[in-house]
């Protein structure tokens, strides 16, 4: 492996990693404030990606313009899901386990519906947005312009998220609710409202990330779950609620996948992430009691 190849692989890895990190930050927000394992998170990303595809295919609208539109659309969809499906479950759940089980099934239903509506409307054809795909030369390595765009946008949005969560009162409230809902409410925080905001924001990020993904990856109605699982991997490895850890874990996963697909073969790219996740969970749950948390 020459030095150029290494740099090239690193760069590819960082582009994917930045995108993964962004998605994981959104999932972390939802998991934090709502304690929901949202297995339909990737479906919102898929919808965002299709928005980018259609707007670009029909009217040549730049994905950069679609990004805020998709973010707002997915935010609205997320809020509808929250209002219509999650609130009734919160109202009647007696134990956290009841709540987790019920939301898991509900999001499974959401996943089925969104995936199959997309399949009916847009068929299973592979779609992609060929936007800014001309290569840009950076010294020895060359990289498609859209990859640099994805990297820049993912880094930018992650930075915005970081500032929002660490430097604003809203971010403080979100972190408080994530850490201890009851205590946060005693401090006068409207936990229900924060839950809505967190869920909406997380969904918006998924929509924006979908637009970015559409420029560097093929879109199909079933693309979502792959991203959900990866985002979950990153969230667990980076540490729940630890934004910086999640960001680093995202980049690390992207780079690891990039090297794995070069060294072992592209078909094992996705398996690499799962192997890392399983290894990590096994290792940490045996070495750190705090990681395992309460048994149930």
């Amino acid at each position: 492996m020459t030095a150029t190849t290494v740099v090239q692989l690193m760069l590819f890895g960082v582009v994917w990693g930045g995108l993964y990190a962004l998605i994981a930050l959104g999932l972390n927000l939802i998991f934090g404030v709502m304690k929901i394992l949202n297995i339909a998170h990737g479906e919102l990303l898929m919808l965002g990606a299709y928005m980018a595809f259609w707007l670009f295919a029909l009217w040549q609208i730049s994905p950069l313009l679609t990004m805020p539109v998709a973010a707002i659309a997915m935010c609205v969809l997320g809020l509808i899901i929250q209002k219509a499906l999650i609130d009734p479950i919160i109202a009647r759940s007696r134990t956290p386990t009841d709540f987790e089980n019920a939301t898991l099934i509900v999001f499974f239903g959401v996943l089925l519906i969104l995936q199959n509506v997309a399949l009916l409307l847009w068929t299973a054809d592979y779609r992609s947005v060929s936007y800014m795909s001309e290569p840009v030369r950076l010294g020895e390595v060359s990289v498609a312009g859209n990859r640099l765009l994805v990297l820049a946008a993912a880094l930018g949005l992650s930075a915005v998220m970081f500032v929002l969560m660490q430097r604003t009162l809203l971010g403080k409230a979100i972190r408080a609710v994530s850490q201890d809902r009851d205590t946060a409410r005693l401090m006068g925080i409207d936990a229900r409202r924060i839950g809505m905001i967190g869920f909406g924001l997380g969904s918006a990020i998924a929509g924006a990330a979908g637009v970015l993904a559409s420029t560097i990856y093929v879109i199909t109605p079933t693309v979502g779950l792959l991203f959900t699982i990866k985002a979950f991997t990153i969230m667990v490895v980076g540490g729940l609620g630890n934004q910086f850890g999640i960001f680093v874990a995202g980049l690390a996963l992207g780079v690891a996948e990039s090297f794995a697909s070069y060294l072992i073969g592209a078909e094992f790219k996705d398996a690499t992430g799962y192997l890392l996740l399983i290894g990590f969970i096994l290792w940490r749950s045996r070495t750190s009691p705090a990681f395992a948390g309460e048994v149930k």
Partner: protein
Amino acid sequence: MKLDPAIVGGLLLAALLAALPRWLSAYHVSLLMTVYMYVALAGSWNLFSGMTGYVSLGHGLFFGVGAYSFAIATAVFNLPPVVGLALGIVVPALLGLVLGLALLTARIRIAYFAVVMLGLNEITKTIVANVKSIGSSYGLTLPSVNSRYLGYYVLLGVAVAVTGFAYAVQRSRWGYGLRAILADEVAAETTGIRTVTHKLAMFVASAAFIGVTGAMVSWNWSYVDPYMAFDLMVSFDMLVMAMFGGFGTVAGPVLGAVVMSIVKEALSTSVPHFQPIIFGVLVIVLILWCPGGIIQAFGAARGRLRSWSRPRIGGAAP
């Protein structure tokens, strides 16, 4: 000795179903086989996840491993199908033991456990799809089933065995141990219940039952490829059916699987394109309306049924 009405009723029903196929059309026989498959899958999922509270999102792993154990034995090594079915029990059980020793002996968050199982299913699918000697992504062609109702009886047998096993466990000392784990694992451990042994045994049992179901189903398909064997929908279906019927009860997963598999079949014949969407809507509506599963809705109407089905400790009994 007093006869247990649940056992007598169950055996009578099984005998009736066993006598049924000669009067049914081929379509209805295959429909009943699908129902038995889902009863076996949902019941096995419930054996571990329902009874201990560790929700697994990837139990379809054992279905695929069972299917491939059968396929490799019969199609690659030309062993008789009986050996294939036996391997469909043994290999998934051993895998379950190894995974259980790795995952269940230390503390692990349920959400992490759920997603690790999901990941294992996907990894195995990828690996199988890339190994040339077992057909890679093209899959393997299997010998066809040589006797007309064999699949019917094997799947009925597995469904009855899973349900009977769950019933026996539920009524035994083990059942109390498991319910204690479900309610509060730390408290269960301090009262001297060997929690790891309990969890491991149920994990291995559910793996074995799902494995043999996968082996029989793949034999019926007479063909197997990684995307059918490790289809995520298998993992999701058994979970949804068990939860829909009633999490942690014996009768719940059976009822859930019967109702849902028939609804699925009816939808896919009448409105094929909209079947998954309507199924999704149904899943949501039902979980919003009867959170404890249909067994609880029945239970509210008929107190007798509830005392038989024994809702789990801490469950939302009305």
